[in-house]
C-alpha cells in the first residue's frame, strides 16, 4: 500500500504569496507555546522549584546531567520498546483470539478489564521475586500495562466487520482465520494504530514505574533518586526525556501508519 494523495484537486497556478505550512510548523509552535505558558505560569504562581521547576531550570538540569540522563534514557527506551513489541504481538494475538468466539469474548474480556483496573505497580514485587531486579521486570511491566488497548481495538475491529464484506470471503469458503486476517485486521488498522499510540505511552509508564521500584538504572530509577535529593529539576528533566522518547516513538508509528492506512484517511474534513 502506498501513500495517497487526497482526491482534492491541486490548484494549477502556484500562489505567489508566502504561506507557511502550518501543519509542519504546528508541533513546534504548540510545544514552544506550552513551554512559554509553563514558564510564565510558574513564575506568576511562585511555586518553588522543588515542586514545579521552570522549563529553563529543567533545561539547565538536562545540560548539567546529560550523561546520566542519556544513559538512563537509552535503558528505558530499550525496555519500553521491548515490552511494547511483545505487547503488539500479544495484543494482536489475544485480540484475534477474543474475536474468534463469543464464549471466549464473554469469558476473557471481563477478566482483562479487571486485570487492567489494577495498578501494575502492585505486580512489580512479584516480578522482581521471579526475575530479579533490572530489565526483565521492566519489560514485563511495560508489556502488561500496554497490551490491553491493542486487544480492545483489534477485537472491536473484528466484531464490527460488515457482514457484506464478510460474505465476500465466506462465499469463497474462507475459514474464520482467513476472514480475520484478510478483513478484520486490515479493516481495523487505523484503530490498531490508534491503540498503538495509547499502548506506547503506557509502555513508557510501565517501564518507568518498574524501574522506580526495582532497578539500578533507567529513567525511573534516576527520577526516584533525584526526587529523594530534592533535585526536582532533574526529575522534570527525566519526565521531559520520557515525553521526547514517547513523541519519537509516536513519530515513527505515525510514519508507518501513513504508509499502511492511507486508504482509510481519505476524509477531506481535517484541513
Amino acid at each position, binding site marked *: *500500500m502506498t501513500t*495517497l494523495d487526497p482526491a482534492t484537486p491541486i490548484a494549477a497556478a502556484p500562489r505567489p504569496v508566502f504561506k507557511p505550512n502550518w501543519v509542519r510548523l504546528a508541533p513546534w509552535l504548540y510545544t514552544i507555546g506550552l513551554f512559554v505558558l509553563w514558564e510564565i505560569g510558574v513564575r506568576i504562581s511562585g511555586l518553588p522549584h522543588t515542586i514545579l521547576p521552570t522549563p529553563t531550570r529543567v533545561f539547565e538540569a538536562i545540560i548539567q546531567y546529560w550523561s546520566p540522563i542519556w544513559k538512563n534514557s537509552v535503558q528505558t527506551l530499550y525496555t519500553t520498546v521491548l515490552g511494547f513489541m511483545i505487547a503488539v504481538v500479544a495484543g494482536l494475538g489475544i485480540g484475534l483470539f477474543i474475536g474468534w468466539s463469543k464464549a471466549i469474548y464473554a469469558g476473557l474480556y471481563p477478566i482483562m478489564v479487571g486485570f487492567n483496573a489494577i495498578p501494575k505497580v502492585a505486580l512489580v514485587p512479584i516480578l522482581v521475586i521471579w526475575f530479579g531486579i533490572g530489565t526483565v521486570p521492566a519489560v514485563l511491566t511495560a508489556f502488561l500495562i500496554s497490551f490491553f488497548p491493542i486487544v480492545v481495538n483489534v477485537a472491536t475491529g473484528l466484531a464490527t466487520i*460488515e457482514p*457484506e*464484506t464478510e*460474505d*465476500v*470471503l*465466506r*462465499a*469463497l*469458503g*474462507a475459514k474464520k482465520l*482467513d476472514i480475520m486476517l*484478510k*478483513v478484520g485486521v*486490515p*479493516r481495523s*488498522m487505523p484503530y490498531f494504530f490508534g491503540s498503538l499510540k495509547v499502548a506506547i505511552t503506557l509502555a513508557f509508564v510501565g517501564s518507568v514505574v518498574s524501574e522506580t521500584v526495582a532497578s539500578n538504572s533507567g529513567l525511573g530509577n534516576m527520577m526516584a533518586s533525584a526526587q529523594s535529593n530534592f533535585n526536582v529539576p532533574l526529575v522534570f528533566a527525566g519526565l521531559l526525556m520520557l515525553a521526547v522518547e514517547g513523541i519519537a516513538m509516536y513519530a515513527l508509528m505515525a510514519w508507518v501508519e501513513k504508509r499502511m*492506512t492511507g*486508504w*482509510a484517511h*481519505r476524509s477531506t474534513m481535517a484541513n
Partner: protein
Amino acid sequence: MTPLVSIENVDMRYGGPTGTLAVSGLNLKINRGEFVAVVGPSGCGKSTLMKLTTGLHIPQSGAVIVADAKVTKPVSIVGMAFQNPTMLPWRTTLENILLPLEIVERHRHRLRANKAEYVAKAEKLLETVGLKGFGEKFPWQLSGGMQQRANLCRALIHEPELLMLDEPFGALDAFTREELWCVIRDLHAAQGVTIVLVTHDLRESVFLADKVVVMSARPGRVISEHPVPFARPRQLDLLYEQPFNDMVQKLHSEIATARVAA
C-alpha cells in the same frame, strides 16, 4: 443426473421469528451447465435466493442441496458477484481481484509460486471488461460501473463451477453491457460452467439464459419458468429479431399480470 442446485420448499425469514419473511415456499432446480436467469420485482428475494444457494444464509425450513449435499455452511464451488460490489478499500483493484485465489483451497497453495501467472490472468480479465490499466487503482478511485466490472472479474478469476451473478450489469451503459453479455456467453459456452444470473433487464435474461425464472413479489417464490428456445451460439443480432422481442414482450406482460395479482 441430479441437478447441481436443488432448492426445496424453502422459507427464509430475516431477523428472528417476527422478522421479514423474504422467501416462502421457494422451489428451484438448476442443472449442471445450465444458465438460469432470475427476474422479479425489487425486494422480492432474488438476492436472498442467491445467498441461500451459496450457503451464506441457512433457511429456517426446507432444504438447499448443492452438488448432492445439503447446504449447512457456505459452499466452496461458487464464484459470486454481489449486487453491491463491496471491494476491500485497502487493496488495489488487482489485489481485490486476486482475493479469491488467496482463499480457495485449489489456488492458495499455488499462489505464491505462480504469482506472475495469476496476475497476468487477472490483468487479462480486467482488459476483457474494459478496465485495462486500472488494476493499480484503488476501488474507490473507480466509477460505479467500473467497480461493478471489477466485481465481476473477482467472481470469475478462480474459475468456479457455479457462477452466481447478482445484477452484474446494472450500472453499465448499453454498449458496455452488451460487450459483457458476450463475455459471459462465451465463458458459459467454453467451460460448461453453471450460471445463475439475477437481472432486471428482460432482454438480458432472454439473450443469455437457457431458462428464465420469474419470482413473485415478497415473500418470493417462483411463479413460472420459461425455457428460452433460441439456439446457441447466440449473436447480438438476435436482439433485433422478432421472436426474441416477442418473448421479451411475453415475459413483460406476464410479470405485469403477476404483479397486479400479487
